[in-house]
């Protein structure tokens, strides 16, 4: 695992997302599932829906990181692409809950950084020689 950037990224990000998802439930007791006003987890505002999303993404990434390089590459690229695409599609769906990327704040910087990092590492690193020549 230590020689594969994709497995490292998937494992680290998966563990962090899982931890954030679990800790999120500790601070969102009494908060509605899709409540507008969430609760603060350190500097991140979360609600139970966010916790579930964090858990799902964390589980997928951690599973992929532990399973193998090819799986990690695929899941990294997929999660990164979905993050980025949902945000970009949201730019054209004004006044919609899908418009989630055009925000300011440290949490959104980290979300976008996660998206480009996962997509970039998934697309460009740990390629087999055959893939690299394609």
């Amino acid at each position, binding site marked *: 695992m*230590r*020689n*594969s*950037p994709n497995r*490292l*990224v998937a494992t680290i990000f998966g563990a962090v997302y899982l931890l954030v998802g679990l800790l999120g439930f500790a601070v969102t007791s009494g908060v509605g599932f*899709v*409540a*507008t*006003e*969430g609760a603060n987890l350190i500097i*991140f*505002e*979360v*609600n139970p*829906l*966010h916790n579930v999303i964090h858990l799902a993404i964390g589980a997928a990434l951690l599973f992929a990181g532990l399973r193998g390089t090819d799986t990690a590459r695929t899941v990294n690229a997929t999660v990164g692409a979905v993050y*980025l695409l949902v*945000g*970009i599609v*949201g*730019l*054209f769906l*004004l*006044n*919609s*809950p899908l*418009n*989630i*990327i*055009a*925000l*300011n*704040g440290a*949490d*959104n*910087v*980290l*979300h*976008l*950084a*996660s*998206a*480009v*990092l996962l*997509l*970039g*590492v998934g*697309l*460009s*690193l*740990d*390629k*087999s*020689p055959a*893939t*690299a*020549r*394609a």
Partner: protein
Amino acid sequence: MSPAAAPVRLLTGFAGFGAGSVNLAISSSMFASAGAVEPARLLAGVLAGLWGAALLAGAVVFLARERLVGGRWTRYALSSAAAVHLAGIVFAASGTPGLGLTQLSALLLTLMVIASVGWLGRSGDRPQRMATSPQAAGMRPGRLLLAAFAGAVLVAGITTPGLAASTAGQYAVPHGGHGHLVPAGHHQR
């Protein structure tokens, strides 16, 4: 190949994603502000949208296939785009409130792509060698990932304010606020 080539290559792709996203936000803003009697603004919106989509596709190809699509023509297009963004800032040609910051964000990201592509060209980057593993690029995976994370945060730090300043940013749903629709023209943060 220089050990720095692998993270610089990743940074180029990250900046391409960021520049593409910001150009799509500019396109979205043009469409949102354009009336039926403003064909010039509609045309600008279409061009910004096509350029944004091309940047995103180009970044994917650059990272996956490790080559710059279009060669020197892409360099000319990038330089032209930088000039257009600069003109958008200096002359406030868009006329859309808040787009100055979005144009500045697009300009910085475009310059980042131009600079990193130029650096890779001068450093004699041989893509096929880097493709197989980070060791082939002369860098340990942990260090490569730290450099990549720093690059991703830098790009996101430039991109996010640009997106937030666009028209889409005025409608955006804040973190933790999904399910709550925002009144038009109201900034959340």
